[in-house]
């Protein structure tokens, strides 16, 4: 009897096949499974709800065609997440981003002094980071990619990834102190 994860893979493989053939049902099922993850990743990278939503749409509209090159390379979720990360990064490069779309309003007051790291303040600080630093911080710390993986995704060397992580942390500490 297949294990739960094997079942999942079987089901994924079936969905991949049907979705890449253009089935709306299969795409809907993939959306139900993976859209939340894509959205979360896009939100934390972009700090903009509107842009994150656009990314989710782009990823799932592009998925049927993109899945043709998936070829069961590793778990589907990780693959989709990487595609989503690349989509976000491309978006950052192509579009000049508008700051005022940030998820957290700039106007949110610094409500410090309650917990050691105030959530509102942290969101503000993350939003205030330059894209290049935030991307590395989010991919490495929040998403758990290794520096090698981050480097490959972003198009930098692993050493640059380390430097950016340290700069991001330094900036966050400064912004939060």
């Amino acid at each position, binding site marked *: 009897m297949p294990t739960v994860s094997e079942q999942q893979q079987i089901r994924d493989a079936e969905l991949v096949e049907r979705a890449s053939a253009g089935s709306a049902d299969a*795409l809907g099922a993939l959306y139900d499974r993976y*859209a939340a993850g894509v*959205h979360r990743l896009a939100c934390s990278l972009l700090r903009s709800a509107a842009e994150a*939503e656009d990314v989710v749409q782009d990823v799932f509209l592009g998925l*049927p*065609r993109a899945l043709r090159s998936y070829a069961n390379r590793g778990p589907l979720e990780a693959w989709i997440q990487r595609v989503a990360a*690349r989509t976000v990064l491309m978006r950052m490069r*192509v579009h000049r981003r508008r700051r005022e779309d940030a998820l957290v*309003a700039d106007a949110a007051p610094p409500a410090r002094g309650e917990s050691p790291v105030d959530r509102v303040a942290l969101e503000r600080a993350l939003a205030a980071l330059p894209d290049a630093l935030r991307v590395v911080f989010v991919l490495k710390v929040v998403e758990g990619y290794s520096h090698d993986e981050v480097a490959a995704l972003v198009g930098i060397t692993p050493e640059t990834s380390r430097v950016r992580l340290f700069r991001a942390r330094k900036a966050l500490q400064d912004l939060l102190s």
Partner: protein
Amino acid sequence: MLRTVLHPGFRHLSLYADGDLDAPARRRVDAHLERCARCRATVVRVRLIDAEARALPAAPLPADLRARVLTRHGAGETVILPLADSPVREPARRRGWIAAAAAVVLALVGAPLVLPRAELEANRSDLVFSPAAPRLGATVQVAYRGGALLAGEERLRLRARYLAHDGLPVNGLGRQAVVAELVRGRDGVFRGAFQLPDSVVYAAFAVEDGAGARVDSNGRKLWELLAHGPDGRPRFEALAQRQFDHMDGQWEQAQENARQAAALYPDRVDAWFNLFFIERRSFTGPAADSALARARARLAEFDRAYRARASLDVESELGIVTRFADEVGDTARYRYWRARLLRTAPNTLWGVQERFYDIARVAERDPRAALAGFDSLWSQVGLGRGAVVYLSVALSLAESTGDAEEIRRWAGRYLRYAPEDEAGVGAALARHPALREEGMERLRARIRALARVDDALRPLERTVTEERRARAEEAQRVLAELGAALLAAGRRGAALDTLERATRTGWDAALFRLVAELRLQGGDTAGAAVPLALAAADPLLGATLGDSARLVLGSRFDAAAWRARVEGARREMRERVLAHATRRRLPARVRLRTADGRTVTLREISGGRPTFVAFWYRYCPPSREQIPQLQRIAAALQREGYTVITLTEPLTPEFRRYLGEQRITLPIYADPWKELEQALDQTGTPNYFVLDGAGNLRFGTLRELTAVPAQMAALAEAGGASASRRESVPDRRPAEHLEGAARGGPREAGRGIEVERGAADGALGVGAVEHHAGDQQRAALHQPLLVRAAIDGDVPAPVRQPDPGVRKHPLPPLRRDPALLVERVREQLLLLHLSSVSG
């Protein structure tokens, strides 16, 4: 290399926190951390921030997104996704042109093909300054790309509000002016140029057509220009002026601006003082405590540094550090700096201010002595830039003494600095029997002045028509004030005549009731019926009046007849209120997010009903003050079946807690795509909008709530009862004399006043009024009407003298409360400081 005797760098601690150091390096850091609490704390903090970042809640996935994706998929849309990882970008010098070209190609291939989306921004325009960071006195080129609003024009005007570093008056007089003409080029771009006056550090701009009929105010945000210093930073004075400018309605931006100034100019005490100034007025609870703690720490640093110095700049250092010490409540330091200021610079703005406080402190005990003190200060040094503030304080104090001569003297001095406050001064004078005639003369003068549209006073974002309307509304309030003064003078006939005039346009339920009362007191029940029906038709006041409105009229109306009368008055309300409405179609797709994360459209929420939209923010003092009123009105509107939408900060757990503690039950939505904000040209808080059931903006950019219930009711009326429009107009057509007066210039307005004078002389007036004195029964019935209205919190208490409305008085009236004087003058002078920091 890393040495344990020194602290490891942050980079090593960061690597350490990740477990990313090699074994020897890790051991060295381990050993160091054993002994060093500071570095231990740094590592803990790195990990804490990491953990918090991982735990940040994700925004909920919009519920309708799946359907949108599948619809677009069904329509055959596709997006090409980047599947390959990005090429590593080597430093440019090591990269050949082939590699560079390959990177470009890859980037292009990899870019998602973004499909065109319907843009909300058809009407957006753009104004570009060159240079964008001008020096003082620079010549600035302007390129304006117009939106739909100003299409078809060949020439446009660039209007500006200039703020100088050397202290223009606080009252905002005469700051607006046309600074350039913009001429359309072949490419459709309007170009022009202007020279920034040497003294101007901050300017705000709007573009309009030659007649001021259409104004592009950049969505009410205006365009801004800050003078920059040789080092490329915006000048400190420019930031201070911008903060001051934004404190008038855009409090959040003002806060942000103060933070920016402090970050750019950490060595300036006035930067920190200005920041604390606004934080202290914005925050409550723990945020306020930490702001105070920060400010005290800063003060201590500056205090130490400044004490060591023999000479200090009065305007930017000595005066500020004195004020700063007082503001943070550090009495010992305040005493030291105050003494030093008075010793070395007694006749400067700051020195005079301290001396003024000294005098003001005795005002409560002995107002006459305080006035004598002011008088002597005035004759010795004049009052410089602070004059308008000091003089308004002195005038209020004079009023509290009741001494006619003192009042007249200080009123004259004050008006020289604040001529636009003539109505306020007139009303104050008119309250005093000996000065009543003079007061009334000033009220009439103000009404005449309001008949003109003065471009120097017209705010940048206002069209000439809007300005005319605003001035007509103010004229009406002054007319009511004049009526009250006539009443106080015992000239009942003229008073009634004048007050009736004030009730002929617009919608002021309290004024309707006052006129009704006067008619009733004069025994004229027939005459009272009309204004009383109007008062009863008002959604707020009407509810509190109930049937007592009918009963005070005696047996004239049975319930059915009165209902019909009020129905007619309601239709009149509709006409009067909607006469001032705009009608702007909002975009079809305006999405909002509910508190539980669903995405809904504005249409869905409003459900075809008149809709009230409120933008509020708890850290904006003017907005915070209105929250209780907003709650009451929103609840009343919801009870009536209207839709209420409010927008504020994100619903964090902390904010939800705050809402619970404050028992705030407003329906809160989020506007994450800024679609509503853009559709309404929303900026700043508080800000209120009224939409009709068809999705049009009808009343917008309201900073006050009082008119909202009548506006909503008028829209509901218009939606329901448009067929019977003709018959609805009551016996008296809504007069337009004030607007007519404004159009026709001073002469026409003067005529209105002459009627009132004529009435006083008995030549004209209320001949038709029946004067049945003292009908006991009616008087008894009249009582509950007043009492019931008076105890209701929602409605202004019955007034003998109508509310003067919005006063331009720089100080709140101090009439009976000199105890608050010191606090208020401090407030005003700090504002003055912001408006005039030295360069």
